[in-house]
């Protein structure tokens, strides 16, 4: 996998993440690649998560879950979501090589988030293909 993203593409991706996801009231959204690199990252500014470790683990986790899916005869699992007491985390694949990770609290409904994430991914795919 090899790819290059220009400044305008990165700007557009951040715009989409801001308007479609951050504005829902989520805590943090990170676009990573499957190697665990961070491509874009937005948060509310009042959290101190170690997003580099988060990205490495998210990529590993997603790879592991995909491998599990194949073992039981599924192409992939469509909903990847971990629920906590205060924060939750949602993963969604973007094309073959990227992953969108969203961290959100009680104030955001999962259903609405999934809908908005799907919309955002459509837009991001267009930008990545440019």
């Amino acid at each position: 996998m090899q790819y290059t993203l220009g400044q305008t593409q990165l700007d557009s991706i951040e715009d989409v993440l801001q308007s479609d996801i951050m504005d829902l009231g989520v805590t943090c959204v990170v676009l990573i690649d499957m190697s665990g690199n961070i491509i874009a990252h937005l948060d509310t500014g009042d959290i101190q998560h170690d997003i580099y470790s988060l990205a490495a683990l998210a990529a590993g986790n997603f790879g592991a879950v995909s491998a599990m899916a194949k073992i039981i005869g599924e192409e992939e699992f469509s909903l990847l979501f971990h629920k906590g007491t205060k924060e939750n985390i949602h993963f969604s694949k973007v094309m073959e090589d990227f992953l969108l990770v969203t961290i959100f609290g009680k104030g955001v409904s999962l259903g609405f988030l999934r809908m908005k994430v799907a919309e955002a991914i459509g837009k991001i795919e267009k930008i990545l293909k440019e």
Partner: protein
Amino acid sequence: MAFVNLKKKEIQVKIVYYGPGRGGKTTNLEYIYSRFNERIKTEMVTIKTHGDRTLFFDFLPFDIGKIKGYDVKIQLYTVPGQVKYNATRRLVLRGVDGIVFVADSMAVRKEKNILSLKNLEENLSAYKKTLKQIPLVLQYNKRDLAEQGIPLLSHDVLEGTLNQELKAASFEASALTGKNVVATMKRIIALTMSSLEKQLT
């Protein structure tokens, strides 16, 4: 392939420590973490079994400062060495920029080293890469065991069995005492950065 962020002027580089089980990959990272504690602001991530063996990987991010105006973030990973964990080893290798092969110097581990190196080549081929294309450093670990009278493979034997064709840089090291651990890391970072420079220009 490393990720270059033109907007934030940041480069993320992935270096993987590979090698047979119980060879000292995690110990390498633990030594680096303890030595550079002040510069590494985050915790080292490890996913271990109850028996303290690496189950998935260890992860240690390491900022080395600016090169040509870019903030360089080195990300050190290890793989689980045990044969049965090949699926996770392959996952960790995805997007690798540089490899340290940590060989076990103990005479009884000769075959295990050879098999692990072969396994590395097979796993790289899944990503259409070969060992010759990727910056590589060999580390002959556990040299300190000689003092306890444990039979070790000589430097020449290790070179002959593992490095004859590859002709990669190699170090005799002891991850436990820290001997040549930093030298190994510095060399792989230097090799990886110069290879990235060539790819980017």
